[in-house]
């Protein structure tokens, strides 16, 4: 379609809402899946323009010249909003600070599914880049039409089109009617990266000033007229049933507005927040539950997982994967359940007003969340509106969606009243869906020249996504008197993958096989956690590569390069090694060790290599990351400092996961319910330095970078510990005690 399509705007928007919803229903998990759009007769516009093609869904220019951008992705603290704004400013040729960005809102923005899978730049960044470029061309065309001159002689600058004779027509002047209500073309006239003056710059983040001066920045900061405070009393364990609860005394507590009881869903609402907290404690004491011991033995978890029924699929095969080599190595690596551990427990506000339930939530996906809430309430999705407001870092599917459902369920009983639900720390820890436990078994051989001749990789894992879509994904809906069933878990298809994300090695092996054992039964509540299966799969592959390098008596970096063909991968490996000062035959100081690891996230997103130095206290076994040096290639870099920030963060977060973290449970309850029982990194273990080298690729597609560091950081640290102690540890987390016991053995 080449020309503008004139349609009644309101009908189009209403209609496009339905179009978007229908897309979402069929592609409920699509946003986490294939990067390439499904094949179509005509080429589609790039990124999310493929599903939301109208330019005015992305950019609005008002007569006074003010420009608003719309994105279906959200700011998670990863700097997305700033980067998005930079891209638009560059392609539109407008001052960065003049732009306003509206993020995910089911009434106002495109449906871009979830902000997840490191897709934001690829999906939304690409969309805005092309949309902005095409809008610029439309504005030039309009100016040319008005002045009756060839469009090719015009240029844009500073929010205006400049005629060949220097006449300036502001964008606001040029915009008229439904000029932008056109569908995007498959290709755009993009700016030459050589000319970039906003993209590729470390523009300060637009959200930081408010965050460091006490401005309202989070959903937790929202205060609405007449707002009441709610607290949920969650069951003490999975499947617990409320057998008795005398709420009469709680209803009389100071400030209490309502006690909500719907099956096993129990909550109390009060005027003031602390009144709600106290009422919650009283309600919790009054509630009697019948619990069922349903959890496996924590120490037995790997065996339990690998003996549960699984759907087995060979996801990669090449040559003959049966053993052929001279020297063979086998290893099993394990990962426990791990927690997102968001610093700010989940929060949401819901208000049922004039037939619409509006929910302000830090969900990663406002459209799927809306669908789930609508289904829970038994209303059409069009009568639910979900608006994203920032929460604390979520690192995947945490309690945000459940808090949104909680708020909506309670608000239903208090029409017109804004209801704020704030989860307690213990609730976030106990009820968030965890990163799944995983087991990997690797077997490989070396040929006579010390090269890998065959490679076998098996991974056992639950699903890595139980995100809404349906109501059954949300706790409130599961606990209601008429509950919604938990949806059947499904694997996320490759090339994205879930438990098998990054299971296929990027290295070139003549014979290889990768098998994914997908385990539907979930003893513990699980869902997507940053990097999904890539964290453990890369940890496994990169630890094993080191073990094989040791067997071959070859330097770990040289060994990887021996098997790595991808030139961008090689460059990232070489850069990290060189910047670290990696020397073949190097020897770390006493009690220190050097480690290296590399991966390309999903084998199609950003490349990351990390070299690290670790010190191990031989008395106590305590490990300490001394320094880490990373190299990253994320294609065209939009904000170098933002990217660096993300990689630094990934390294430290992964270090915490790798050295400290495992969810604990007894036969009935999750027992890691606060920072005492689920310790994470504190300042005493922060390294001396973390350095990130960014390899910019001007003009190349954006590559998702928010999750590229987790896997390599884990393996790099594990390899450094092995180098320091001479002992190889394969069971995450690599705790002080495990290291000490290994040294002693």
């Amino acid at each position, binding site marked *: 379609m080449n020309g503008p399509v004139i349609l009644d705007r309101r009908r189009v928007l209403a209609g496009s809402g339905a179009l978007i919803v229908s897309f979402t229903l069929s592609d409920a998990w699509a946003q986490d899946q294939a990067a390439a759009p499904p094949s179509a007769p005509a080429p589609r516009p790039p990124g999310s323009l493929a599903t939301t093609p109208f330019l005015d869904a992305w950019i609005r220019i008002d007569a006074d010249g003010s420009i608003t951008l719309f994105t279906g992705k959200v700011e998670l603290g990863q700097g997305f909003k700033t980067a998005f704004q930079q891209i638009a400013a560059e392609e539109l040729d407008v001052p960065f600070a003049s732009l306003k960005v509206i993020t995910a809102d089911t009434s106002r923005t495109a449906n871009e599914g979830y902000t997840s899978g490191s897709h934001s730049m690829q999906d939304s960044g690409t969309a805005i880049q092309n949309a902005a470029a095409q809008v610029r061309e439309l504005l030039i065309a309009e100016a040319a039409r008005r002045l009756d001159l060839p469009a090719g002689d015009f240029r844009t600058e500073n929010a205006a089109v400049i005629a060949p004779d220097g006449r300036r027509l502001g964008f606001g002047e040029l915009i008229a009617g439904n000029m932008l209500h056109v569908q995007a073309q498959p290709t755009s006239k993009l700016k030459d990266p050589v000319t970039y003056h906003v993209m590729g710059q470390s523009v300060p983040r637009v959200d930081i000033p408010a965050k460091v001066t006490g401005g309202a920045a989070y959903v937790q900061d929202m205060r609405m007229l007449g707002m009441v405070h709610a607290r949920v009393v969650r069951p003490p364990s999975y499947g617990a049933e409320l057998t008795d609860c005398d709420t009469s005394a709680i209803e009389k507590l100071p400030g209490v507005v309502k006690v909500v009881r719907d099956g096993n869903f129990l909550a109390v609402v009060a005027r003031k927040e602390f009144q709600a907290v106290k009422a919650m404690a009283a309600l919790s004491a009054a509630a009697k539950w019948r619990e069922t011991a349903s959890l496996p033995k*924590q*120490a037995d978890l790997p065996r339990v997982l690998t003996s549960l029924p699984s759907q087995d699929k060979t996801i990669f095969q090449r040559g003959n994967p049966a053993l052929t080599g001279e020297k063979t190595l086998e290893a099993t690596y394990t990962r426990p359940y791990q927690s997102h551990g968001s610093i700010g427990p989940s929060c949401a506000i819901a208000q049922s007003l004039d037939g619409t339930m509006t929910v302000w939530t830090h969900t990663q996906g406002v459209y799927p969340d809306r669908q789930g809430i609508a289904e829970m309430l038994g209303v059409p999705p069009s009568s639910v509106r979900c608006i994203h407001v920032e929460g604390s870092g979520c690192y995947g599917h945490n309690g945000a969606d459940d808090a949104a459902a909680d708020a909506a369920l309670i608000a239903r009983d208090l029409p017109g009243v804004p209801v704020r639900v704030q989860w307690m720390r213990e609730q976030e820890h106990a009820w968030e869906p965890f990163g799944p436990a995983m087991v990997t078994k690797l077997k490989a051989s070396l040929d006579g020249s010390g090269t890998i001749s065959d490679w076998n990789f098996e991974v056992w894992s639950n699903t890595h996504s139980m995100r809404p879509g349906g109501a059954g994904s949300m706790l409130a809906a599961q606990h209601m008197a008429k509950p919604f069933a938990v949806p059947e878990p499904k694997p996320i298809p490759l090339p994205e993958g879930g438990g098998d994300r990054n299971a296929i090695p990027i290295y070139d092996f003549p014979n290889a096989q990768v098998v994914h054992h997908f385990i539907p039964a979930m003893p513990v509540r699980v869902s997507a956690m940053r990097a999904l299966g890539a964290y453990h799969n890369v940890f496994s592959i990169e630890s094993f590569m080191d073990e094989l390098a040791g067997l071959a008596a070859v330097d770990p970096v040289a060994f990887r390069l021996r098997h790595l063909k991808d030139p961008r991968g090689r460059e990232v490996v070489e850069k990290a090694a060189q910047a670290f000062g990696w020397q073949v035959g190097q020897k770390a100081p*006493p*009690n220190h060790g050097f480690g290296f690891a590399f991966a390309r996230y999903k084998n199609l997103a950003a490349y990351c290599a990390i070299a690290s130095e670790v010190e191990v*206290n*031989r*008395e*106590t076994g*305590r490990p300490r990351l001394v320094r880490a040096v990373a190299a990253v290639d994320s294609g065209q870099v939009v904000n170098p400092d933002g990217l660096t920030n993300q990689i630094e963060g990934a390294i430290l977060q992964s270090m915490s996961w790798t*050295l*400290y973290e495992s969810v*604990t449970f*007894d036969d009935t309850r999750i*027992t*890691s319910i*606060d*920072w*005492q*029982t*689920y*310790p994470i*990194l*504190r300042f*005493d*273990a922060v390294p001396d330095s973390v350095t990130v080298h960014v390899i910019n690729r001007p003009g190349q597609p954006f590559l998702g970078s928010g999750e590229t560091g987790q896997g390599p950081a884990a393996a790099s640290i594990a390899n450094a510990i092995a180098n320091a102690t001479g002992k190889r540890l394969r069971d995450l987390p690599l*705790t*002080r*005690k495990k290291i000490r016991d290994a040294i*002693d053995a």
Partner: protein
Amino acid sequence: MGGLFAALVVAGAAAAFAVAWRPGIAAVDPPSPERFDQTLVKRGRDLVAIGNCSTCHTRRGGKDFAGDLPVPTPFGTIYSSNITPDADTGIGRWSEAAFRRAMRSGVDRAGRHLYPTFPYDHFTHVSDEDDRALYAYLMTRQPVQAQAHENQLPFPLDQRVMIAGWKLLFLRRAAVEPDPTRTAEWNRGAYLVEGLAHCGACHTPRNVLGAERASAQFAGGEADNWSAYAINAQSPAPVPWDADALFAYLRNGWHPDHGVARGPMAKVVSNLSNVPDGDVRAIATYMADVFGPTPPDRIRRGEEVLAQVKSSSVPATQANATGAAIYVSACAPCHETARPLPYSGVNLALSTAFSASDARNAANIVLAGIRPVAGERSPIMPGFAASMSDAQIATLLDYLRARFSNQPAWAGVEKTVADARSAQAVFLRTALPPDNGPTDTRE
């Protein structure tokens, strides 16, 4: 007459010299670690844990065993020495004989007397065989070049020759003789407690010359401004201790009827958690005997307290509304939950801190809370030093004393709190943190 006087003076000086002077032992080349048998080294490690050596000989943020921990005494501040095998600043040039002499008699390789802050009045009981293992362990550690600060002592206490007199009076160099009427376990416990574990060094009151009062063994002492409770028949614990409870506490770092080990004891139990069960059992068995049989009224009181705690009905007192209000708002949210130890606040009716003879430990905990052990599951309690004034803490402690003990009110609590504030700041800054948190027995 003059000649006799001169002879007496000379004889006296000679005697004093004979008492005070010790020969130096020849320096040796630092022995190479490979020389030492690995089994011996491992045994040495266990003994070092029992002896709690690292706690005094390592400073927070410093390298293991490199010394320089300031130890406050009534006489001044002593800095612990570097006992890494560094040739210049540590004990790298000490022969095993020199090491044994230090343990046995409190004399260093050069022949200088060591201040009894190093508790050789206990270590003198350590057997040759155990000294050999300790030596093997220490000599295979990482050498660290680090010179400790000079001790801060006033004249004449800074003259080491004075120590000779102290030793004459107080150092008893006998071995701990096994008692044939007792079990092997009890005897092993006696050997460890009186010797390497040196429990009395903190838990026995000292005389004006800083020596343990032999007639008041285990009747209560102090360390770093923490009160080391009486661990004999005078134990103030609301629920009496027995051998099983002691074993669990020493092995796991906590007990449901007593709370979590805090202050200097935290490091002790952290070290003991790595030591063979048998040794900890032996210590518990011996100490249970030191506690002695519990009188019936204390047994009754203990059962009463446990019953009250179980039914969540420790009666509130009428007086001290401010203290009550502070307790209800700042303490009860954690100290009256159903959440089990060791990851919750202990019910204060069980806490010995409130039955003790002074308010020091209670003040210390309220001021500084409990810090997490890095990367380990461990209790965390916020400190209230910044949010509460001395007067507010005193009011709170007076209330807690009245409510959670059956003892008379403390005197001078506000001053106790003020002193604790400054002493705690030093302790927190310099004392080595424990390596592991309490063991969760659910695992």
